[in-house]
Structure formats: C-alpha cells, structure tokens
C-alpha cells in the first residue's frame, strides 16, 4: 500500500474547507447538550430475565424506539475513531501507512467521551487519519476493473481526466459514501456544498495538470476523507 503523495495531501488540506462546512451543517440545530431523562420510571422494573438469562424482548421493546434521541451526546475516543474508520471502509487488514498515521495522530484524539473536548488539533488529526484510511479504500476500489463491482466509485474512471467525472457521477459517489458512512442520504444543502467543492477543486488545478488522471483520484480521495471525518462519524 503506497503512502499519500504530496499532491494528495495538498488536496486533503483543501478538503478541510469542506469539512468545516460539513461540520457546521452537522452541528446546525443541535445544542450539544446531553439528552435529558424525562421518563418517570427507571425501566428497571421491566428488566426481568428470560430463561436464557437475557432480557425478554417484549419488556424493552418499542417504547425505546420512540424515545430514541438523535441529538449527539458523546464523542468517540481514540481507538473508537480508528476502528470506526476501519470498520466503515471494511479494511480490517489495513496498511502499515494507516497504522502509522494513527500512531502519529492518536495523541490528539479524545480520551473521554465529552463533546466539549473537540478542538482544532483533534479535527486535523481525524481528517489526516481519514485521508490515509480513504487512500486505502480508493486504492482497493481502483484496483477493481469491473466498475459494477465497486461499492463506492462505480461512476469513476480513474484512468481519465477529472473532466470525465461529471456532476451526476460525482453526486453518485457522495451519495454512496454518505449512505454507508452516515447511514443516510446527503441533504440537498450538503450536496450543494460538495458540488461547489468539486467546482472549486477543478478550478484550482493548474492548466498543465488538468488532464492528469491523478486529479480524478485526488478529488475522490478528498471527498471520501471529508465524509469519513465528519462529525457524525466520530460522535454518538
């Protein structure tokens, strides 16, 4: 597994802009407070064991679905972030580059689940790690010649210039990554941001490099990294 090239790293930095915007969207409407406990009984009365020693389903059933909150209330800690990224991209046999990146960056990750501990260095570390993890994911999918067998990048021709990845193809990538990583389709606002990023990304490529296929990979890598380092991935 090869390490990130300088150019790719530069593009990941560009992706930080997207992450910032994405993070803003993620926080929007949330007050980041822990959920309040408003139900009167403590639920313990319903926890009667079944014959196999496990709580009977009926006793902890649908009422919990109704009371579930979607507000973020806890932060994933260092190894949780690492293994979440590994798990989401299905790279249990991850590269040394990913392991090394974690070793370098793990000191910036949180060790407690407190949302208030989010800080700049932590976001940079998470972004950096997601870049390396996505590098592994992109490399794996790039190696699959039959595009119909690719999970995320079926609309991408890695051998062609970036102009060949049109808006529809790019939206397909964003949608598939979002569906898998975040468990939901991207909102229209998020799609707008990503498409703006694509436009800005292409505009920033020097004319001499615009025809390079590597730019296609860089755009996809940046997009993957942005989604994998989004707030929803490293919070509950």
């Amino acid at each position, binding site marked *: 597994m090869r390490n990130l090239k300088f150019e790719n790293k530069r593009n990941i930095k560009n992706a930080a802009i997207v992450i910032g915007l994405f993070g803003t969207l993620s926080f929007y409407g949330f007050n980041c407070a822990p959920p309040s406990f408003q139900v009167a009984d403590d639920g313990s009365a319903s*926890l009667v064991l079944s014959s196999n020693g496990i709580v009977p*389903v009926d006793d902890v059933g649908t009422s*919990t*679905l109704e009371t579930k909150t979607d507000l973020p209330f*806890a932060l994933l800690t260092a*190894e949780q972030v690492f293994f979440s990224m590994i798990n989401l991209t299905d790279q249990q046999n991850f590269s040394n580059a990913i*392991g090394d990146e*974690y070793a370098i960056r793990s000191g910036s990750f949180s060790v407690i689940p407190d949302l208030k501990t989010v800080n700049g260095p932590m976001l940079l570390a998470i972004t950096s790690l997601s870049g390396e993890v996505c590098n592994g994911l992109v490399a794996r999918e790039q190696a699959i010649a039959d595009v119909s067998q690719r999970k995320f990048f079926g609309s991408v021709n890695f051998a062609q210039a970036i102009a060949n990845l049109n808006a529809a193809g790019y939206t397909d990538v964003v949608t598939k990554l979002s569906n898998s990583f975040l468990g939901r389709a991207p909102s229209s606002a998020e799609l707008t941001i990503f498409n703006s990023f694509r436009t800005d990304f292409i505009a920033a490529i020097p004319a001499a490099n615009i025809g390079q296929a590597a730019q296609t990979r860089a755009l996809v890598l940046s997009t993957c990294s942005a989604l994998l380092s989004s707030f929803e991935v490293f919070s*509950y």
Partner: protein
Amino acid sequence: MNLNMLSAALLFGLSSNVMAQTQAQKDDAKWIYERITGVKWAADHPLITQAATMVAAGQRAEVAALATQQPQFLNVTVKNFALEMSTRDETIRIPLNDFAATIMGVVRDNTDARELLYGDFFYVGDPARIPASIPNVIANPNEMGSRVLNSNQHYEALDSKNNRLDVGSVLMRVNGQRLVENIIQVSGQPDQYVIVANPDPGGVLTSRAFIEAHAVAGTNRRPVEYTFRQFMCLPLEQWADALSSDVRIGRDIDRFPGGDHMKFQTSCKSCHTVMDGFRGAWAKWDFDSNRALQTTVRQGASDGNRVLNKLNRNNTVFPGGYVTTNDSWVNHAVRGVNATQFGWRGLDKVTPANTGIGVNSFGRLVANSQRFSTCMAKRVFKSVCRKELPDSEIATYSSLGTQFESLNYNMRNLYQIAALHPRCK
C-alpha cells in the same frame, strides 16, 4: 370520501408506517451494534442488515448477544473499559497491559467476574495464534520474566496496530500467577529469570500494572483507595468514617496536626480508619526494580516478619500508632452509611467475615459485596451507553447489578442488558 379513496388513504398510511418502522428498526439495530462494539458500522453492512431483520422479528436481545461476538467488543469496548481502571491516571491513552488483558479474557471466556479480584490466573497472547515476531512467553521463562513480569513489552507488542491482531481472540488464560524471585546475570549471556508461584494471588489486584500504579513507593494505602475507587465506584471521601475505630491507623499519621487533635478527629481520621484497616492486606506487596515484589518470594525492603518497611516508616510521628506485623486486615467500613452502601457478604457470600489475610482474601471480600456488582453495572453502563445516570437513578445500577449476580457475574451478559436498558438511549 368514497370507498376507493378511503382504501387508498389507509393503504398509503399503512405503507408509510411500515416504511418508517423499518427505518426505525434498522436504526435501532445499528444503535445496539455501535454501543456494544464501540465503533461505527456502515448502514449497509451485512451484519447490520441481519440485525435489522432480527429487531423487526422482536429479537433485540439476540442482536445484543451477536454484537458481543464481534471482535470490536473486546478490542475496543472492553479494552477501554479495563485500561481506564488499570492506572492512577485513569486514562485510556496507555498501551494494553496485564490488568486489561485479564479483564478482556474473563469477559471473552464468560467466567465469573469476581475472580478478577482473587483469581490465580492471568492472560497472555497464545503462542500458537500470535506472530512469531512476538516471543513465546509460555515456553521460555526468560521471555515470561523479561516481557511479562519485568516489563509490559509483551502486551505492547500484542497491542501494536501494525500487528493487526484481534487481541481479544488471541489471549490465552494462564493458571497460576507468577513472580520473579531473582534475576541471575552472567556476563555475556541473557539474564536468567527465576520465576516462582505467586503466594497471594489477587486477580488483577496483583497484576503488574495495578501494583506498579498503586504499590510503588508510598505507604500502600493507595492500593486500598484505588480498589474501592475502581471496583466499588467509591472515592475515599464517600466511605470515610470519623467515628470508626482508629486502632489500625499507623504511626506515620499525626494525631495532632498543627497541634490540633480535633483536626485529626474530624478530618484525617475519617479516611484512615477505613483505609488503614485494609492496608495490612498489602503489607507484603511492593513494586521494585520494574516488577511486582511479594516479600515472601523476594524479601526486598522488609523486616523479619516480611512486612515492608514502608508500612511502619515515620514511626516517630505518633509512636502509639498501629504497628503492622503481618498482612492481616480488618474491615472498619461497617458502620453508619457504610453498613448499607457496601452490602458486605463476607468472603464467600455465605459466612460473615470482616477480617482476613493478604490481598486474596481482601479481594474476596470486595468481590462478594453487593457494591461490587452495582459498581460493575455502573461502569458497564457508562462504557456501553457513553453516559452516566443522575444520582436519583442509582436504583437502575442496583437493578442491573442484581441481574449481573443472577447471571453468574457474566460481564458479557451485563453488557447486553445494559445496552438494552431503556435508560441507555
């Protein structure tokens, strides 16, 4: 509204409801998996799809059980749970150690969690299942000595990300805790470790990590304090008792601090009555030369009774104080609020007992208390639900603790019932 329109409306409402319920069930399945394994899962992962189907069939408990079979459960959730308890800093930013590996092993093997405090065993990497680059500590006593008993190298190697080990699955239980009696150094040859059985095994309480964290230097009060902090979930100030017996308070504690005996009576004494009563359990334990020391095995800085000098040091501060002559202990945390908050049940839940000899019996007293079960429930709840309940809901922990006992102190099952508890959401 004609019949057709009514049917269409009902059908639309029904199908909308079915779709919404399906999404809710899928979210619920993903939620259970993510809480128990401690990591995020792709919404389209086959296991999540399977789990959603099970939730739809009313099998949430079975989903929770399946989630505990995933490697991340041991390697992330349980590992972090254990690491936090293993050192004085209470941080997870440390490598794997023998304390955490043993807890992971006990959870994996579904054995009685009480043994964590008095069992005569520990866990290492199974030589048959780990890379050859990690030396075999079972077959070679010198490797056991240098990499497990005299350093943390073995566990750090297991934990190395680039070894990509499923640590939880490669751990192997080793019965019989061990200590280094001596290291024979011969010029030009590797050190020869003389390894003997631990005469006072106390599960993770006598692990190298715990002894290093709490028995190093000091006066061996910290092992007592941290045993209660970690396994009873009680900081010292919450079980201090100024009205209890001061007969066991050592000679190094000033009875007239600043010339004021009242200060001792109302402040210092409250912690030392209960703490010094138990301190004798560690009278023979120290951390020296990078390894645990038990004076029966290696005399170290101890007296003729093999009691460490540090237990009786500063003996002129109050010469009338208690002189430690052996490793006996007395439970003085039995009156006032302590009479109820611990739920003492002796050393075996059968015979009442408030005295004992050594760490092993001390561990048995703690492990068989009601408070231990409640504390484990509280810790597991926090570990899996990522939050703590307000004090007004302490009954929830008690309830989970009671179930934990009825499940034969099976930690894996405790994780399952905690994750399914309505308050976990």
